[in-house]
């Protein structure tokens, strides 16, 4: 399953960091952050609960880039 979320982040490098953090979150098969469109598209692993996974993704992103937001 694939879902796209709106995000807010200030710099391109921070977006790259968010992408890495999202990819390292359990339940995420693949995540791509598009800085220019301010979007994150996340492909979930089968059977993953998207809501709780995304909360985890947000937590991990906040860790690497304090000043970011994902609109869940």
């Amino acid at each position: 399953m694939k879902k796209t979320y709106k995000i807010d982040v200030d710099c391109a490098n921070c977006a790259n960091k968010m992408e890495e953090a999202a990819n390292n979150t359990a339940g995420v098969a693949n995540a791509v952050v598009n800085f220019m469109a301010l979007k994150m598209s996340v492909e979930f692993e089968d059977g993953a609960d998207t809501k709780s996974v995304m909360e985890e993704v947000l937590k991990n992103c906040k860790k690497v880039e304090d000043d970011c937001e994902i609109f869940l």
Partner: protein
Amino acid sequence: MNKKQKKVLTRIIIASVLMVILVLLPLEDYPLVRFILFMVPYFTVGYDILLKAFKGIKNKQVFDENFLMAIATVGAIALGEYTEGVAVMLFYQIGELFQSYAVGKSRRNISQLMDIRPDFANVMVDGVLEQVDPDDVEIGSEIVVQPGEKIPIDGVVIDGNATLDTAALTGESVPRTAKNGDEVISGCINMSGVLTIRTTKEFGESTASKILDLVENASSKKSKPENFISKFARIYTPVVCYSALALAVIPPVVRLIMGIDPLWTQWVYRALTFLVISCPCALVISIPLTFFAGIGGASRAGVLVKGSNYLDALSRSKIVVMDKTGTLTKGVFEVTKVQAVDISEEELLEMTAMAEAFSNHPISRSLKEAYGKPIDTSLVSDVEEISGHGVKANVSGKVVQVGNEKLMNSIGVQVEDIVEPGTVIHVAIDGKYHGYILISDMLKEHSKEAIIGLKRAGISKTVMLTGDSKKVADLVAADLGLDEVCAELLPGDKVSKVEELLATKTDKEKLIFVGDGINDAPVLSRADIGVAMGALGSDAAIEAADVVLMDDDPSSIVKAIGISKKCMRIVYENIYFAIGIKVACLILGAVGIANMWIAIFADVGVMVLAVLNAIRALSVKKYK
């Protein structure tokens, strides 16, 4: 500028004014006062950077730009270089502000040029027009589009005439006309007249929504340069930090051992310069920005690219494989020649059209269209369709036989072998040969131009694939100047032919397949780059292709390649320029030639120039 940016701007202005005043004040004799006073602009402009750097360290994300800047400025201040310390922070913030402004601006720019999202639909409720959310309009509803409004949902015109501006969708500036019975697509702007439309799709499935979706999600497929840059940034920053540390420690220690003055201050200053230069922002922002602008610019020219990787691939294309029908030719059969024997051409066409009056075959239809007058069917009787041969009918008392060579042979009429591109229809009246009519698929207006343009764009091989007969295919290929032609192919053969061609080229060279999106989804996905053209309204094509040409003009492929090359040129310019200047300044900094001010240029100046260069990719006027 948004609120956040305005706040930063205010801080920058306050800090700059304060700094100018402090530099002019004679404070040399009061070191403590001077230090305290300089801290005011320093914290005004840089407190958030310091905070972020601190948080980064706490979250074990040490090596980022904030950290670089914090260390460099704190270090400079510790060395007593207050002016430089504050200036680095100040210019860093100016650079960041410029970057975020430029990014925001191009975001808006691109959403403006893709301004096809309809905001409402007018629905007639109890005789009164009401504006409703297009999402709530069901299939088969009647909607009204007033002059100046966008068509919100795909549908068929059931009342009214209008001219439509399709520029936002196709890049084509000539307006189209829509009348009763025409299919219209969402996103067009109604320029004149009121249209009543019966919707044939839901809003989410309509062309405008599909296209927006496609463009907005475009850069999720990243190109090699983009991946390279993000990997580069990940390795580069730590490397530079450790190098700076080495630069600050090793030379003085060596000098100390050698028994000469270690010059600690000088080497630490060099190391700090090093840190300022090294900030990777110029690269990290300008590359995705270039691709974003390139994709945006391309969509303005009617070329939708589904990802920056395809822009990269397009610029490397070497082989272009094209479908014939619908791509190079119009895909519509037309009477192109009437060759009458012993009767007038008009009479021949009339007799033929009448004999075919009851048939609905595409060929019959084009015959009737060429005749152009209403047919009195009461004059036609005893119609007999002989499958694989043609038609026999009694027209005003005469026996008219219309069909191919086999039919003529079967009734004992001798015909010449005619070599023409298309289908030849022979006509015999009362058993006597009276000539033939040629029906063929017309070449598109710009097909020839397109092939010449492709050659000029560096394409080494142009190939045409077709299910048509070899005779017709060869004539078309010769006319257009194609390098290779493969005729009489079944849809499955096209895939294997493309695979054969794929095997003949190196990995770096790319193969483009161009089709009209009908029946060629497997080939579109097998090619390096699948290009669907004339995709307005064809969902299958939009889904299967990597690049979608909004109009059905084959010379748009040339346009797409041109845009991709320009974009990639800018990408590489930025990579070489930014890395080149940085490396040069790093070396100058290490040997002590470059001071902090040059470092600021290497950081902020390079970033500003790279961003300005990136925005150039948005301009596609040349290719329109």
